C-alpha cells in the first residue's frame, strides 16, 4: 500500500510516522507540501508538529499549502486521509473534518500517555483492536476539541467519534480524541499512535491502528 506522509515546513513527526508505516508494511514516501499531485497514493497521512510554527492558529496556515488541493481531492475520491495531532488541526482548519482544536483547558503543552476508549470498533482505524481501552501518547498544547452541539449530535448519530479520552486531559467536548468525517474516509486524532509501535520505546498499542488501515485498504483492493 502506497502511503504519502506530507511534510509541511515545521512538521516534526513526519519521520516518526514514516518509520511506523514502514515497520508495519506500508510503502511510505515523505512528500513535500509543495506537491500538487497525490494520485499515486492509496492513503495520505498528515503528521504532527508545528506547521508554519502554528502561528495564528494551529493548522491555519498549512491549510493553504499547495498540497492541500490534492489532499481535498483525495478525500473527495474516497481515499483514506489521516491527520495526527497537527495533521488533525490542519484537517479541521481545511474543513475536511468538523470542529476546531483550541488551546488546552488548562493552558500549556502536555506530554503524557493516556487511556483512550474505542468508541467505534468497526472502522478502518480500529478494526484490528482487540481491546476497547488502549494507552496512547499525547503531546499537544492545543488539543481541546470543540464543535457546536448540533454538529456533535450528528456526529454521535453517525458514529463518527472513534476515540474518546478515558480521563479528559485537555477539555475536549464529549471527551473526543479522534473522529472521522461522515463518509468515514477522513480521520483525525490528537494522540500519537506512531509513537507507540515499538516495544523498545515501551508501547505497541499504536500498531493495531495502522494494521486496521492496512487491512481495510487491502480488502478494498481485493474487492476491486
Amino acid at each position, binding site marked *: 500500500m502506497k502511503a504519502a506522509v506530507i511534510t509541511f515546513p515545521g512538521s516534526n513527526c513526519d519521520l516518526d510516522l514514516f518509520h511506523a508505516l514502514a515497520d508495519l508494511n506500508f510503502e511510505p514516501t515523505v512528500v513535500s507540501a509543495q506537491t500538487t499531485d497525490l494520485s499515486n497514493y492509496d492513503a495520505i497521512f498528515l503528521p504532527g508538529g508545528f506547521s508554519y510554527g502554528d502561528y495564528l492558529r494551529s493548522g491555519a496556515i498549512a491549510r493553504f499549502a499547495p498540497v492541500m488541493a490534492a489532499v481535498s481531492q483525495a478525500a473527495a475520491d474516497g481515499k483514506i486521509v489521516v491527520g495526527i495531532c497537527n495533521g488533525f488541526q490542519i484537517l479541521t482548519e481545511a474543513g475536511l473534518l468538523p470542529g476546531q482544536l483550541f*488551546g488546552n483547558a488548562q493552558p500549556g503543552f502536555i506530554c503524557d500517555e493516556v487511556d483512550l476508549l474505542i468508541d467505534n470498533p468497526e472502522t478502518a482505524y480500529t478494526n484490528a483492536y482487540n481491546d476497547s481501552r488502549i494507552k496512547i501518547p499525547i503531546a499537544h498544547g492545543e488539543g481541546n476539541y*470543540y464543535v457546536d452541539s448540533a454538529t456533535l449530535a450528528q456526529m454521535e448519530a453517525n458514529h463518527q467519534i472513534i476515540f474518546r479520552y478515558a480521563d479528559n486531559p485537555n477539555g475536549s467536548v464529549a471527551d473526543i480524541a479522534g473522529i472521522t468525517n461522515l463518509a468515514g474516509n477522513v480521520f483525525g486524532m490528537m494522540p500519537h499512535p506512531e509513537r507507540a509501535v515499538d516495544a523498545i520505546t515501551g508501547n505497541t498499542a499504536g500498531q493495531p491502528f495502522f494494521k486496521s488501515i492496512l487491512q481495510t485498504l487491502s480488502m478494498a483492493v481485493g474487492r476491486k
Partner: protein
Amino acid sequence: MYTAKIYVTYKPSIVDPQGEVIQAALQRMNYQGITSVTQGKYFEVNLAAPNVAAAKNEVADFTDALLINQNTETYRFELVSNDDEVQS
C-alpha cells in the same frame, strides 16, 4: 497605503478558556471587581490599495480566509489612510 486594524474575538457562544484563566489569576491577585475577561487577537496590516473601498474589500477577504476561523471567531476592523480614519 492603508493600515487595517483588525480585532478578532470569539463568537459569544464559544467559551474562552484563556479568558477564564486570566480572570481567575486577576482575582487571585486581588482585582476583585473584574466580572469577565475575554482574549482575542489584534492585527495591524499595512497594505497598498487603489482606494478605500478596494482596501476594505481586501481586508474583509483575507480576514475571512485566513485571519479568523469562521466557525468560532468574528471580527471588526478600522482602516486608517493618511491620518483619516474610516470605520467599517
